[in-house]
């Protein structure tokens, strides 16, 4: 028996080919195969068979080809398209309003979906993202101690790696080499396993040893580019904050992804950290300094890890007698992919987003698309009902119900698909503006993939089908005589369904309107609330290198030089700025014994002018004084006084092995953001530890003054790279998320309202048109204008009133939920709900009345002659 050609190839042909031809083609191919087999051998014959079979996949013999078989239903599609275009032209304004409303809705919800998708994409670009978890020493903190990682790895040998990051220096680090500099807010110390866990992509250098030696560092391409240009910087040195410290570069990695909570420009090797920190600190089991990440063998291992943490904690704290842990003291894990949206712990790497924004944005997108869809259904239904005559006539000619429904459905689907295409186009155009609005970098081409597009169009077709089905069913179900004889409208009233839809639509509009007002109130409250300090007109200048040295030598002299600049009011020093995470340390009176409990205290190191520069009020005691306070001294806040339970004024206190008097008590000022409650806090008098020079000027951003300050600083310390920022800008940055959300809300609420009103307008217009004759007759009989007005608008007003009744409680619940996120909240007063409701009512009234008045005023002769 001779060999058979491959079967599966034949099957492709059988599937594709028209049955009329399949037999002869297969015959020819088999015959060819036979010839080839004899002349060229089996292998080549099979190959040729395959190629020749695929060459047979042509139009002329395809069973999918429409050329030979043209069904009547496809012929009719062309006709339907023509009729729908004519209908569109006939009611141009309604149809246009309909399409515009839907397009706007689609555009907005598409943009919001992109935003959400971007937020959800965080950390996904790390190849092992699903297997990485951050492990922290308790539920409140994001951090852990230096020894924690090693212990964790030993206790859980299944973990493939445990890596650590620790922030290098404070807030701003200036990297430089010769003339070139790079200002970074994010320099971390990292250890070798971190490279393995996060798979940093190396451009230069050896990943296996990059972070092993002290005083070496990895830089990103961005840093390498701006400092070293195009050449390979491996082996070069880079200066940090002037030329006091420099690191050898061991590698260059690709810039870290934008959508990651880990933002770093440089990684200094962990051995550097170990060289600079005293041994007893390194051995501390409670010093919160490291961000510890574990690479698990598989994503599901996290449960095992969580289950084992309790025992591990006992092992870890084995030296602590009588371990008594509250729920919050227990160790905690957090999946890497959850950090951006769900983690809001003390001392995160940076400000994370909040899952609540995803919900709010998702809800907003859903509401707007819902409003637009409801609108579409409503107007489309109304317009279809006007076409009963056409349907009747078609029936007379012989159309069956299925054909008629197909016609109407194809029209609605055509409209929704058209609106979707427009919406996608508009989304592409609008995205750059949206990006500026929310201060993000969303790129359509990165976020939107083919699958999403298919989904969007599937949604559009579904919407078209749903919105077309009801009116189509209604209209085509009428008997021929009733459609042709009566005035043309099968139902005398706006149906219950359409009323319900309008109510629903306005309820949603009201919901987001009230939401916007509430958010505006809350944000205003936060922005204008008395925070206990006055940071307007304060500029922070980074102190390092030569400037630091000069300040040590002659602080007084430099201060008076700066103060002599016109416009400068006062100059001070501090270790941290508003919004910086403060060092949290043990702080207790010297009289206390070891067993006494004292709360951890936020510490900041300042000079004698800080209180004055920041406008902080002293409740009791005195300010620091450079002559009196020869050693350390402290000023504590009210909160600390409350938690200590004893009046600390004048007491001696110990901190980091040094003792000094508590000389004053200050008001609780909000050193972080209003999202956090104020905790016990103390200012420590130690100017030599302060890295920021604070300059208070007369008026904010007066350029002349700023230029003069910069020149003066350059004159004092010529080698220093001047870097400053306005404290106000920094503080505003703390509320970036809320502010962006608020801007989005404001814009989209207006759009949602417009869409709703368009819907109402369309419905009112058609309703009025329907009752033109009735109005005419009533007028002839003597009805007054206002009577007619109330007659026509009554049911609309009722509908809006109903939506207010439903929308107010709904928004009350939602807003309360949102406000729970803030430590300082507005109280919800009645007018927050009343004013938007009233606005909505008046707006709806205007829309309806505006339309009705025209009909009411018209001469009844004209209206009675109508048709």
């Amino acid at each position, binding site marked *: 028996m001779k060999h058979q050609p491959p079967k599966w190839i034949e099957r492709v042909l059988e599937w594709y080919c028209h049955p009329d031809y399949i037999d*002869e083609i297969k*015959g020819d191919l088999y*015959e060819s195969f036979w*010839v080839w087999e004899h002349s060229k051998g089996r292998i080549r014959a099979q190959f040729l068979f395959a190629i*020749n079979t695929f060459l047979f996949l*042509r139009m*002329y013999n395809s069973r999918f080809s429409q050329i030979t078989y043209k069904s009547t239903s496809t012929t009719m599609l062309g006709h339907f398209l023509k009729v729908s275009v004519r209908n569109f032209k006939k009611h141009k304004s309604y149809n246009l309003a309909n399409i515009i409303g839907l397009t706007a809705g689609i555009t907005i919800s598409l943009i919001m979906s992109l935003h959400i998708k971007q937020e959800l994409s965080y950390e996904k670009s790390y190849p092992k993202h699903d297997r990485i978890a951050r492990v922290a020493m308790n539920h409140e903190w994001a951090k852990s101690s230096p020894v924690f990682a090693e212990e964790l790895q030993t206790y859980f040998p299944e973990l493939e790696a445990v890596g650590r990051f620790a922030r290098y220096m404070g807030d701003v680090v200036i990297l430089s080499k010769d003339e070139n500099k790079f200002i970074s807010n994010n320099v971390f110390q990292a250890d070798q396993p971190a490279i393995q866990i996060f798979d940093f992509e190396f451009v230069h250098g050896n990943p296996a040893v990059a972070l092993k030696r002290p005083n070496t560092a990895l830089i990103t391409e961005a840093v390498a580019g701006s400092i070293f240009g195009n050449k390979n910087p491996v082996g070069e040195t880079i200066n940090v904050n002037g030329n006091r410290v420099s690191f050898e570069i061991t590698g260059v990695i690709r810039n870290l992804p934008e959508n990651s909570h880990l933002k770093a420009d440089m990684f200094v090797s962990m051995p550097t950290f170990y060289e600079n920190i005293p041994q007893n600190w390194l051995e501390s089991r409670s010093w919160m300094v490291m961000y510890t990440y574990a690479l698990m063998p598989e994503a599901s291992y996290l449960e095992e890890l969580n289950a084992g943490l309790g025992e591990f904690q006992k092992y870890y704290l084995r030296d602590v007698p009588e371990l008594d842990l509250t729920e919050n003291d227990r160790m905690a894990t957090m999946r890497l992919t959850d950090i951006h949206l769900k983690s809001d712990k003390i001392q995160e790497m940076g400000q994370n987003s909040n899952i609540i924004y995803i919900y709010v944005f998702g809800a907003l997108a859903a509401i707007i698309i819902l409003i637009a869809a409801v609108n579409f259904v409503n107007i489309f239904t109304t317009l279809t009902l006007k076409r009963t005559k056409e349907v009747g006539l078609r029936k007379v000619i012989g159309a069956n119900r299925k054909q008629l429904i197909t016609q109407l459905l194809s029209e609605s689907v055509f409209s929704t698909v058209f609106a979707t295409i427009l919406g996608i186009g508009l989304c592409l155009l609008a995205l750059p503006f949206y990006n500026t609005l929310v201060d993000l970098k969303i790129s359509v081409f990165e976020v939107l993939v083919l699958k999403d597009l298919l989904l969007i169009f599937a949604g559009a077709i579904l919407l078209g089908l749903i919105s077309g089905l009801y009116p189509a069913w209604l209209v085509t179900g009428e008997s021929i005589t009733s459609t042709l004889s009566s005035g043309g409208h099968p139902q005398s009233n706006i149906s219950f369904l359409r009323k319900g839809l309008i109510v629903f639509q306005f309820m949603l509009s009201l919901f987001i309107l009230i939401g916007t007002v509430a958010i505006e109130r809350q944000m205003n409250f936060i922005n204008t609330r008395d925070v206990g300090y006055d940071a307007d007109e304060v500029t922070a200048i980074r102190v390092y290198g030569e400037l630091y040295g000069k300040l040590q030598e002659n602080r007084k002299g430099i201060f008076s030089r700066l103060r002599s600049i016109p416009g400068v009011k006062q100059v001070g020093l501090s270790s941290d700025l508003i919004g910086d995470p403060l060092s949290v340390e043990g702080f207790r009176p010297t009289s206390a014994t070891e067993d006494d409990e004292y709360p951890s205290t936020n510490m900041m190191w300042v000079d004698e002018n800080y209180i004055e520069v920041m406008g902080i009020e002293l409740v009791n005691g005195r300010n620091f004084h450079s002559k009196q306070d020869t050693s350390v001294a402290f000023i504590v806040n009210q909160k600390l006084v409350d938690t200590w339970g004893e009046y600390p004024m004048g007491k001696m206190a110990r901190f980091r092995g040094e003792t000094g008097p508590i000389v004053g008590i200050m008001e609780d000022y909000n050193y972080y953001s209003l999202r956090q409650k104020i905790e016990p806090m103390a200012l420590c008098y130690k100017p030599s530890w302060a890295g920021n020079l604070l300059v208070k000027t007369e008026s904010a951003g007066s350029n002349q003054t700023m230029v003069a300050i910069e020149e003066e600083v350059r004159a004092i310390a010529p080698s220093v790279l001047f870097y400053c920022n306005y404290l106000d800008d920094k503080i505003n940055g703390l509320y970036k998320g809320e502010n962006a959300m608020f801007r989005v809300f404001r814009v989209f609420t207006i759009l949602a309202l417009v869409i709703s009103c368009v819907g109402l307008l369309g419905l009112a217009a058609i309703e009025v048109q329907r009752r033109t004759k009735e109005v005419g007759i009533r007028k002839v009989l003597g009805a007054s204008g206002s009577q007619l007005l109330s007659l026509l608008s009554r049911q609309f007003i009722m509908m809006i009133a109903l939506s207010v009744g439903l929308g107010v409680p709904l928004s009350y619940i939602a807003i309360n939920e949102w406000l729970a996120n803030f430590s300082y909240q507005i109280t919800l007063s009645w007018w927050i709900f009343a004013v938007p409701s009233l606005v909505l009512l008046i707006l709806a009234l205007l829309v309806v009345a505006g339309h009705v008045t025209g009909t009411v005023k018209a001469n009844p002769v004209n209206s009675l002659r109508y048709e």
Partner: protein
Amino acid sequence: MKGTTIGEFEELCLLSVGVLGDDAYGMTVKAEIEGRTGRKATISTIHSTLIRLEKKGLLESRLGGATEQRGGRTKRLFTLTAVGQQVIEEARNIRNAMWDDMRDRVVTGSL
């Protein structure tokens, strides 16, 4: 008019069908063309051309003649229609006429 103008390859196919008489189907037409011109043609190209010519009305076909090599499948056997016959004759006449004119010119020496 559709069907009266044909391309060179189509002409070759028509001629082959004419030459092959009762046994003109995809494989034989392919062999004929390859044998006479030395060109290679794939079986699918031949088949689609033959079907096209049938649609133009220049060929007609019937099914028949299954063989073992074909796995027992039928052949589509083609024969020239009257129109097909006319078209290739016309093509030949046009060429002949042109050849004649060219020869005349060579003879009268105006080339």
